[in-house]
């Protein structure tokens, strides 16, 4: 600890270089965290999917509807505990750019199937009592400045050119990666107001499997129940459904990650090189230190500590910046349901920063430790 002033004056020796090295460290770590956040954004759907939930869609295509009467028959399938349904609405709020998922939900059962969305009881009751009621995620409510009681118009949906809803509840997520951008309203209201050919039709069912029952068997039994009917179904786990979309994105995600990793590697190489360079330049000074009685180990620790210091400050700044950046919200304007910095990323970033800081210092530190004083001084 008593060498701290020495450490600082070493760092202060070339202020510009120290600042630049810390800066590039911060940039590299920031980029690393950013890539992690992007990855988490892609993975959100799969991570948030319920492990005990099955999704039932029309066998021909997910855009084809299913009859609302399927619910009772799905409930009869052994192993199914509860089932709910929803329809995709696809209206426009003010401007086509303001896209967010809008679902007409079965208000009696939806909350039971999706316990991760937390709604205050009083607000939920208000939603149940108002046929034109709606529930919005915290994120979307903040984005458009909605408050409880607001009247929200949605136009130009396939169901009709103009619909109005009263915001009765705002939901929060139980987990940090839950999608807070959804907008729900009552399916029975849509059924009443929508065109006749869409009556009695729902977009998809979500069924919860009883504890202990096999997901694959229940899925197979549901599909078998509707085989050869006018509305055949395709049932899969919610996770598989989300993963299939992610897989279709596939190339883009992979590309961004590969590119990012290459860049990160380059940045760290550059930073490490600079740090090693600055130690190499001071060989003679280290020799002086050894002449005046510093032990081998003390010199080693001193040089390593310098690298660790730069790494800590630079890495810390990078993580902090990344945190601030992700708190600022989705930079792509609504593409990711949630954009956040996962805790694992922070840990990994800190680990990488420290490792590079130490590694970059290790080679010159080792040389410094093994330094032959007489020879080094002669170089003066």
């Amino acid at each position, binding site marked *: 600890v008593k060498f701290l002033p020495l450490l600082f004056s070493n760092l202060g020796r070339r202020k510009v270089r120290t600042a630049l090295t810390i800066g590039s460290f911060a940039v590299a770590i920031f980029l690393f965290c*950013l890539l992690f956040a992007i990855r988490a954004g892609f993975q959100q759907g799969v991570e948030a999917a319920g492990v005990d939930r099955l999704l039932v869609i029309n066998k021909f*295509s997910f855009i084809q509807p299913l009859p609302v009467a399927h619910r009772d028959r799905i409930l009869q399938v052994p192993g199914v505990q509860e089932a709910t349904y929803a329809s995709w609405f696809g209206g426009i709020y003010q401007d086509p750019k303001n896209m967010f998922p809008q679902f007409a939900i079965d208000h009696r059962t939806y909350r039971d199937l999706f316990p991760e969305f937390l709604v205050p009881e009083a607000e939920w009751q208000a939603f149940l009592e108002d046929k034109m009621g709606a529930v919005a995620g915290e994120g979307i409510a903040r984005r458009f400045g909605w408050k409880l009681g607001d009247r929200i118009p949605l136009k130009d949906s396939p169901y009709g050119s103009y619909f109005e809803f009263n915001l009765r509840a705002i939901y929060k997520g139980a987990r940090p990666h839950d999608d807070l951008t959804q907008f729900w309203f009552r399916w029975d209201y849509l059924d009443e107001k929508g065109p006749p050919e869409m009556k009695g039709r729902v977009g998809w069912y979500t069924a919860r499997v009883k504890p202990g029952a096999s997901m694959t068997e229940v899925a197979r039994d549901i599909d078998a129940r509707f085989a050869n009917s006018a509305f055949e179904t395709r049932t899969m786990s919610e996770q598989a459904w989300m993963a299939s979309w992610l897989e279709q994105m596939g190339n883009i995600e992979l590309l961004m990650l590969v590119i990012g990793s290459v860049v990160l590697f380059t940045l760290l*190489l550059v930073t490490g090189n600079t740090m090693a360079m600055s130690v190499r330049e001071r060989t003679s000074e280290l020799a002086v230190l050894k002449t005046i009685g510093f032990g081998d180990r003390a010199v080693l620790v001193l040089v390593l500590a310098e690298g660790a210091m730069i790494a800590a400050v630079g890495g810390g700044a990078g993580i902090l910046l990344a945190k601030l950046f992700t708190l600022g919200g989705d930079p792509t304007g609504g593409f990711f349901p949630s954009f956040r910095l996962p805790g694992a990323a922070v840990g990994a970033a800190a680990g990488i920063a420290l490792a590079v800081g130490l590694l970059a210092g290790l080679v010159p530190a080792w040389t410094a430790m093994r330094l032959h004083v007489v020879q080094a001084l002669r170089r003066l």
Partner: protein
Amino acid sequence: MAIPLIYNLESVRARWRTTVVAVLGIAGTVGVFVAMLALATGFEATLVASGDPENGIVRRKGASSELDSAVTLNQLRALEDASEVARDGKGPLISPEVVVIASLPLRKTGSDASVQVRGVHPRALEVHRGVRVVEGRFLRAGLHEMVVGRNAAGAYSGAELGSEVKLGGTSWSVVGVMDAGGSAFDSELWCDANLLGSAFERPAGVHQSVVLRLATPDGLSALKARMDGDPRLQCQVERETEYYAKASRMMTGFILSLGSIVAVVMGLGAVFAALNTMYSAVAERTREIATLRALGFGGGSVIVSFVLESLLVSLAGGLLGCLAVLPLNGLTTSTLNFQTFSHLSFAFQVTPLLLGLGLSFALFMGLAGGLPPAIRAARLPVTAALRDL
């Protein structure tokens, strides 16, 4: 008086290790920058190529894509009678189309992907002039036949010429492969509109969109005016090229916004690296600079010389980065277009413009990284620096 360039070349060579690191940093940044732009450009070009500037596309008012659109039979009849629509001996050049999404297994992974299926009428090829049948023949109306896009035939298993595709509970035989010039149609399956509509339980006579050839290139505004005046025609018309440009906007916006954030952050890192390299170059060469000054080279010449050196390094990095991404050009990849919920194949496009942008970005980084150290070099007090000898 200018300091000879050979001096800079020699000094770059003398410090080859730090130079290589700086060059790599800039090459990486420029490479990623150009690759991102090439991705977005390729995606957009694929969709835009699907449109024909002389065609209009009619959809339901407010529909976000063809998928959630509907054009009724009455509207179709009114469009067929409209004088703004081009016609030949066989009648109006108009193609009403049914669009659905089906899932087919991808050849590469075996997992299902969403494929756009388009139900068309016999005149479709006359309206979509960019689409040609390159293998087999076009489908016949009233039969369960299918023509597949070039990319779709390659991407999905069981979608090649001569095979049977299960769709909407019926089986369709693939009778032809079409080439749509690298556009979105290359990722589609085409079949008979009426049969597709009934297989997917669509009300008879309702189509998702109507593509029509305009009688005159500027007939679009006249058609818009007619729609505003005719209560039967409660729908919207756009130029086909504009519709497809819009359909690419969400994805390209996404790629570009993420890409530019990454590029800016990386650029910052590369500038830091360049600054460090040049500052240490200046520090190492204090006495050389002082000697140059003593020989009579002015401060301006020193600045020019050092900035040139930095630009040289960054240009090398930029060229390396551009070279590295050049093989991407034409490489076909695919992703999901969120605006149409369907899988789309497209090729990277590394255009000269993008390479130019990449090189400019490199030079900009070189300038930002070289100027401050160059100014410091010029400000070195000659006598003090020489005394260090």
